[in-house]
C-alpha cells in the first residue's frame, strides 16, 4: 500500500464530486419527471399508452445500464439522421448522453416505485375524498400523490443510492467524474488498488449523506408518526 499516493490523490478525486453530483442531480430531476409521466400513463386506462409505457419500463429494467449508455453514446452517433438533427447539439456531448441514459434508466425504475405507491393508497381514502366532492385532479393532488410519495420514500432512497453508484459508468464514455478521474490517475501511476479505495470511500461518503437526506425527508413528511412531546 502506498499511503502517500492515496493521500495525494484525495484532492484530485474530490475534484470529481461536482460532475458526479451534476450527473446524479440532473438525472434524478429529469428521471422524476419521466417517472411521473410514465406512471400516470400506465394507470391512464388508455391501452396504447399503457402498453407503450410497459414496454419502456420492460426494456430499461431488463438491460444493463452499461448497454444503455453505450447504445446511446456510440450507437446513436452512428446515424446520419441523428447527427443532422437538432438533438445532436446534446447527443454530441458525452455529458448529455450520460444524463439521457441515467434519466431513462432511473425513470423506468422510479415509475414502477411510484405506480406501486399510487396503487397502495387505501381505497377508503379515495372514497372519502370523492364523498367530499373532490374532482379527480384535486383528489390526485391532495390525497393520492402525498400519500404515495410518503409511501415510496424508502424505496426511492435506494434508487438515489443506486444512481450515485450508476453515475460511475459515465466514466466509460470519456467523462471525468470521480471514477473517470480515478482511472486517469491510475493511467499515470498504475496504482489501481490505492486509487480505487480512495474513490470507493468518496462514494461511500456520498451515499451515506444521501441516505441521511432521504431519512430526514421521511421524518419531515411523517409528523403524525412522531411521538407527541
Amino acid at each position, binding site marked *: 500500500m502506498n499511503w502517500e499516493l492515496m493521500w495525494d490523490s484525495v484532492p484530485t478525486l474530490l475534484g470529481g464530486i461536482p460532475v458526479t453530483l451534476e450527473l446524479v442531480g440532473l438525472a434524478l430531476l429529469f428521471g422524476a419527471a419521466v417517472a411521473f409521466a410514465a406512471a400516470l400513463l400506465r394507470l391512464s386506462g388508455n391501452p396504447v399508452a399503457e402498453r407503450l409505457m410497459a414496454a419502456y419500463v*420492460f*426494456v430499461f*429494467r*431488463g*438491460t*444493463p*445500464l*452499461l*448497454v*444503455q449508455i*453505450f*447504445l446511446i453514446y*456510440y*450507437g*446513436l*452517433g*452512428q*446515424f446520419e439522421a441523428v447527427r443532422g438533427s437538432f438533438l445532436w447539439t446534446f447527443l454530441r456531448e458525452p455529458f448529455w448522453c450520460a444524463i439521457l441514459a441515467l434519466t431513462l434508466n432511473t425513470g423506468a425504475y422510479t415509475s414502477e416505485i411510484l405506480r406501486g405507491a399510487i396503487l397502495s393508497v387505501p381505497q377508503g381514502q379515495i372514497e372519502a375524498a370523492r364523498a367530499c366532492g373532490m374532482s379527480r385532479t384535486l383528489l390526485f393532488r391532495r390525497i393520492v400523490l402525498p400519500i404515495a410519495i410518503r409511501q415510496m420514500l424508502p424505496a426511492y432512497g435506494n434508487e438515489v*443510492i443506486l444512481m450515485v*453508484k*450508476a453515475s*460511475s*459508468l459515465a*466514466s466509460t464514455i470519456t467523462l471525468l467524474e470521480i*471514477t473517470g478521474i480515478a482511472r486517469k490517475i491510475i493511467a499515470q501511476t498504475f496504482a*489501481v*488498488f490505492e486509487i*480505487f*479505495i480512495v*474513490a*470507493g470511500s468518496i*462514494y*461511500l461518503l456520498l*451515499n*451515506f449523506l444521501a441516505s441521511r437526506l432521504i431519512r430526514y425527508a421521511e421524518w419531515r413528511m411523517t409528523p403524525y408518526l412522531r411521538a407527541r412531546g
Partner: protein
Amino acid sequence: MFELLSFGPNGWGGQLLGGAAMTVAVSLSSFALGLVFGSLGASAKLSRNVVLNGLAEVYTTIVRGVPELLVIYLLFFGGGGIVMAIGRVFGYEGYIELNAFTVGVVSVGLISGAYSTEVIRGAVQAVPHGQIEAARACGMSRWLILRRILVPQTMRYALPGLGNVWQLTLKDTALISVTALAEIMRVAHVAAGSTRQPFLFYTTAAALYLVLTTVSTAAFERAERRANRGVRRA
C-alpha cells in the same frame, strides 16, 4: 450488415451466443454464491453476537455503497493478493492465481450477497414467532426448527425479493467485461469497436439481456406460484 451477426467466419453470432452462455454461467454461479453470502450475512445480522452484527453491517454498507465497477476492479487487481495473504497464513508461499471467471463470480457474488442478506433477513423476520414457539413446545431441536419451520417459510417469503436480486445480478455481470471475460457485453464491446457498428452490436446485446430477464422472470413467477400453492389468497 446482418452478416456480422451470422455464424459464418465473418460473423460474431457464435461469439455472441457463447457470450450469452457465459453470462448465464456467471450469473448463476454468482447468484448461488450470493445466496451463501446472504445466508451467512443474514444469520450474522440476526445473531446476538455484537461482533458478527458489526461485520455483517460493514459488509452490506460497503458493498451496497460503492459502485459495482469499483468492487469488481478492486477484486480483479487485488483479489489475488488477498487470497495469497490467506494462503501465507496457512503456510503456502507460492503464487496463487485467480482466473477471470473466478474473479467475476466472486465479485458479483459479493454484491449479490449484500442484497440477498437484506432480503433473507427480512424473510426470516417475517416468519411468525408463534410458529417457532410452537415448534419448540413440540420439542423440536434448533436444527430441526431451522430445517422444518424456518427455511421452508423463509424461502417462500424471500422469493419475490430474491427475484429482484437475481435480475440485479444478471445485469451486474455486464460490468465484469472489464476483466476480459467473454460474456455478452465484452463480445459486443469488442465487436462494436472492431467492426465500428456499435448500434448493431449493442442492440443485439440488449436483446440478449431482455431474453434472459424475460425467461428468468417467468421462472421466478412459476417458483413463487409453486411456493405459495398451500397458501390461501386474501
